[in-house]
């Protein structure tokens, strides 16, 4: 227990901030994932072969390649890519990208591929009549989407999105290889300096279990909220 004391003598506060970091990265990654899903779900459902191919390659490649490899690509390639783009605009100095941004982006792209599949499935399982009825009622495209289609999509998608959230949360442990101080990295540091890896990695496991447990509780509430009326 002394090992977990707050302040200079223990690792309690460090691990607390690391947990906040894990939550922050997971949420940021999830939001980035949703933005990717917002772009790629319509492409996946579109009838244009080229757009369809583009969206399919995104989800297939990301879901078929290990997360760690994607993270290495971003970690080693991210700086180069940003500097290349900057050099086109005439900026030639060295640019250092923050580990948080690289990590959240890498995990976000992965999470986006899973979200895209979830949203595609949800949109496809909505009755065709709903689209037609909305059209017949003369609602604007905007209202059709936000008031008729989206609430139904959310109801169907939330159970699967909670799986995506779990995957995303657990994937953030991989960002520790880039040096971002989240739960895994902090446990690694603590285990190294106290020579007590068994305790710190087990404690990390407990932290992750707590995060998954409480987020599931929260998501269940959302699920009930969106399925009212059924």
């Amino acid at each position, binding site marked *: 227990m002394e090992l977990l004391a707050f302040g200079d003598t223990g690792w309690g506060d460090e691990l607390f901030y690391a947990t906040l970091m894990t939550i922050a990265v997971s949420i940021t990654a999830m939001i980035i994932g949703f933005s990717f899903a917002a772009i790629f779900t319509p492409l996946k459902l579109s009838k244009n072969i080229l757009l369809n191919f583009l969206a399919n390659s995104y989800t*297939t*490649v990301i*879901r*078929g*390649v*290990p*997360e*760690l*490899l994607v993270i*290495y*690509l971003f970690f*080693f*390639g991210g700086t*180069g890519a940003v500097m290349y783009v900057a050099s086109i605009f005439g900026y030639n100095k060295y640019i250092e990208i923050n580990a948080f941004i690289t990590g959240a982006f890498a995990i976000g792209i992965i999470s986006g591929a899973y979200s895209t599949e979830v949203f595609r499935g949800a949109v496809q399982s909505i009755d065709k009549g709903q689209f037609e009825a909305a059209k017949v009622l003369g609602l604007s495209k905007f209202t059709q989407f936000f008031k008729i289609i989206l609430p139904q999509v959310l109801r169907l998608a939330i159970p699967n999105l909670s799986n995506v959230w*779990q995957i995303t949360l*657990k*994937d953030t*442990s*991989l960002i*520790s*290889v880039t040096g971002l101080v989240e739960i*895994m990295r902090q*446990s*690694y540091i603590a*285990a190294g300096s106290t*020579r*007590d*890896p*068994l305790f710190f*990695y*087990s404690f*990390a*496991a407990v932290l*992750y*279990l707590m995060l*998954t*447990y409480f987020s599931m509780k929260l998501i269940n509430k959302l699920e009930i909220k969106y399925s009212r009326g059924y």
Partner: protein
Amino acid sequence: MDLELMITSFPKLLNAAAITLKLLSVSLIIGLLIGLLFAILRLNENIFINKFAYGYSYIFRGTPLLVQIFIIYFGLGQIEYLRSTFLWVILKEPYWCAIIAFALNTGAYTSEILRSAFQTIKPGIIEAGQSLGISNKIIFYKIQIPIAIRQSLPAYGNEIILMMKGTSLASTVTIMDLTGVAKYIISTTFKPIEVFIVAGGIYLFMTFIIHNVIKFLEKKYSFNS
């Protein structure tokens, strides 16, 4: 784009892919046995056995695989007692530590897949077997297991692919699998995109093969054929 690097690194990565496949197949076999055992325990009526099996699958599914590998590889070596037993021969090898972690992890997911497959078997099918005078043992082996296998194939196929991606974490405990070698080449040449294309291509190829084998099996075992 450095084509020459892509060509020279291809055989190295292909060799490493063999290690990935070895890790995958060994952990899948052990994991399947663990999964079957715990699925049966989950269906047991004794509440303690039941809760124990649930706890196992909850813990392994709720924590990242990386934590599990680190606990086994870095953590268990800390227990003095373990160092004096024969188990230490296994636990000091990163290769076996990775396999133990993978097998326990995939075992947890597999037990959930098999449990739900067993539960979706209609009671009428078992009753039909009983009324024909077939012994409970034969009903289990000849009726319940084949139906459960058929039911769980699609989900298990996904699990195999997830596990194949999971083996990439072996590279964090010094094993030079496909991801490990890819990382080594990236960090010595600083050409991440080229290496990613080759290594990712090999992974995608393996995913493609697994996907199609499962599809073939699903067709073979489907009720309609």
